């Protein structure tokens, strides 16, 4: 029985290594994607175009403007335009926001009245709008301090308690820390399901599948013989991405490296058996690709918590998310790499993944058998 399995395994490996194109896709593409995704997704804001309308023209107002535009956050693209032309400014995308300092700014500050500074924002991108608001708000808050201490009568009342935040795991709140482990999940999922489904369908298309079926090889062996080579390859891929990703993007693995590998294996298996399942239900390689895509790519990217938090989704989608293997792996891998989770921490999720593996393999074997009859 083992010999049959080995024979299929060996044939598959030879086929994979003889096809330089698929090799490149399997080894080069993930790295490429890692770098592209890793660099492209960067939520830290900078160089937002701003227009300044300073109706006050006093040292105080200039000080405010200087502080607002000090860091790299803003880039001044227009000054002192009439407020009526703001609409056109936004339409032409010359600036994303306009800071309007009223004429009575300086006098207001001195009198102790909080002068209102308008911040007109093109909120068509609400994320940016939010960032702009908080940033300017902070700068403005700091602005008031020196003037306040000048008038003792209006001294700020002492506060009762302070707030002291401690950021765990990612003190600098870098976005790469968040995305790189997630990328591993994404890329692995992509490769495993798509590759396996195509491999099996290709066999069927060329007619060699029939040849194998006529032999004494059992469906179980055929499926396993197909899945194992890709397991090996995907695993090497995952390792590659992990090592390069953590070294290059400076995302050190806090937990056990070995544990990460083990978990990768379990996840890969899920992807592969899903691919096998899909292959039993499609007719052509093109079909296989599309369906594998729809089932892995979209859910993995969108619903697994890769970018969009699962807890923010409507309840219904959270349920769907619970059926996506990537969701669990995402948590596992982020947990191990970023939080230093140990095996007991990830046991529940790993267990679920293993369960999915078994289910998927069983389903694909049964589906395979059904198609034969």
């Amino acid at each position, binding site marked *: 029985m083992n010999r049959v399995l080995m024979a299929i395994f060996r044939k598959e490996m030879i086929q994979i290594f003889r096809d330089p194109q698929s090799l490149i896709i399997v080894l080069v593409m993930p790295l490429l*994607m890692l770098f592209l*995704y890793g660099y492209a997704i960067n939520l830290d804001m*900078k160089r937002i175009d701003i227009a300044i309308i300073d109706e006050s023209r006093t040292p105080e107002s200039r000080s405010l403007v200087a502080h607002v535009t000090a*860091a790299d956050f803003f880039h001044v693209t227009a000054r002192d335009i009439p407020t009526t032309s703001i609409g056109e400014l936004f339409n032409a995308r010359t600036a994303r926001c306009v800071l309007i300092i009223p004429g009575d700014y300086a006098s207001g500050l001195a009198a102790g009245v909080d002068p209102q500074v308008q911040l007109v924002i093109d909120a068509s991108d609400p994320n940016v709008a939010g960032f702009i*608001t*908080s940033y300017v708000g902070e700068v403005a808050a700091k602005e008031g301090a020196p003037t306040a201490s000048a008038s003792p009568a209006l001294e700020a009342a002492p*506060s009762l308690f302070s707030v002291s935040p401690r950021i765990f795991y990612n003190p600098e709140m870098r976005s790469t820390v968040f995305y790189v482990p997630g990328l591993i999940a994404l890329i692995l999922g992509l490769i495993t399901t798509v590759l396996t489904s195509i491999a099996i369908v290709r066999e069927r298309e060329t007619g060699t599948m029939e040849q194998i079926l006529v032999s004494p090889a059992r469906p179980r062996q055929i499926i396993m013989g197909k899945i194992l080579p890709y397991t090996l390859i995907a695993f090497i891929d995952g390792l590659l991405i992990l090592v390069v990703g953590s070294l290059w993007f400076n995302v050190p693995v806090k937990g056990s490296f070995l544990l990460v590998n083990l978990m990768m294996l379990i996840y890969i298996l899920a992807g592969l058996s899903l691919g096998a399942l899909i292959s039993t239900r499609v007719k052509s390689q093109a079909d296989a690709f599309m369906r594998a895509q729809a089932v892995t790519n979209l859910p993995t990217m969108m619903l697994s918590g890769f970018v969009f938090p699962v807890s923010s989704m409507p309840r219904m989608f959270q349920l769907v998310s619970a059926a996506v293997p990537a969701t669990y792996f995402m948590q596992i891998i982020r*947990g191990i790499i970023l939080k*230093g989770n140990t095996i007991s921490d990830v046991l529940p999720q790993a267990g679920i993944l293993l369960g999915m593996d078994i289910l998927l393999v069983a389903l694909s074997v049964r589906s395979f058998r059904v198609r034969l009859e």
Partner: protein
Amino acid sequence: MRRVLYLVQKEFRQLLRNRPFLVLTFLSPVVQLIILGLALTTEVKNVPIAFLDNDHTSASREIREAFTASGLFDFSGMASSEAQAARLLDDWRVKIVAVVPHNFQSDMKRGLVPAVQLLVDGVDGNSAAVTLGYATATLAQVQQRWGKAAAPVGPQPSTDGTQPGMTTAQPRSPGTPRVIPRMWYNPNLDNRLNTVPMLVGILLITTTTFLMAQNIVREKEIGTLEQIMVTPVRGIELMIGKMIPFTILGFLQMTVGVIAAGLIFGIWAKGSLLLLYCLTVVFCLSTVGIGIFASTLATTQRQAMFVVQFLLSFATLTSGLFTPIANMPDVVQTITYANPLRYFFIILREIYLKGTTFRFLWKETVALAVIGAVMLAAATLRFQKRLK
């Protein structure tokens, strides 16, 4: 020219006969739109929070109640110790733990200004920042209720002083400028107004580029492409004969998308639909052109799909949907000049949310047209009717 018409007629006959394909092209975008439009949000809601009360006084209870009553948080229980709090964070059970120190109430009475700690899971920097903002604001409200102004935020681990997204309580000491934000076009800062039209764009490029490439490579595989090469049909005629049906398809899909976005999410374009459609056509021409070009690089459908898949995911990522293009490294930014999605997203957003007119969108239109023309030219050059 008549030949082109016959080519187009053949394509349409084939397309219309392919029932599963039609379902895929028109039904699945709607389904995907619904799913993604509803599921995708970077908004932070229902944040699981735990509370570590080392004081057990009415003050600490009030703080706890402030959190439990707040609609932003999902109170998941009390932590028994700091070690346990850390465990809760490790286990992903909570995203934030509020810690009230010993002698909190008495220290406050004595004017010692004790610190309430907020332990935040920083893995997702974006969410963490927002969560911290919520918590800080909640605490500020408590302070206010207790009749005093909130204190400035304590020492934070920051590298350059800018903490995007962290809203600190505004000091109300007199003589401080107060910033009044006025949100134009999207007063509620609804993310969906942004993402839904963009999703339509993504679905569009997927259909046009991907299916176009697949279509041509399939003809290569079954031999009908060679058959056409033996006929008097010219390379350019073949290209146009392919472009027209798929552009029309994209056009129709756009309609479905627009209607779905409107009916399901209530998002209708503020600006001219006519302009939107015209620009959609230009967009489709560019994406179909890319699909055709991609098909000249592949000999099997499988290869074609990999190539297009790769191009599309890169295009999506660098389109400005997830992150602003201005944030990307300069190299990547330069490459995005060739990304039709980048321009189309701008067009979609401008027309949908701001009602922008063509006068401000001509640059994007030209860019799309250029991409289409270049791709078409490149494909025509590569498509040799006679092999050397």
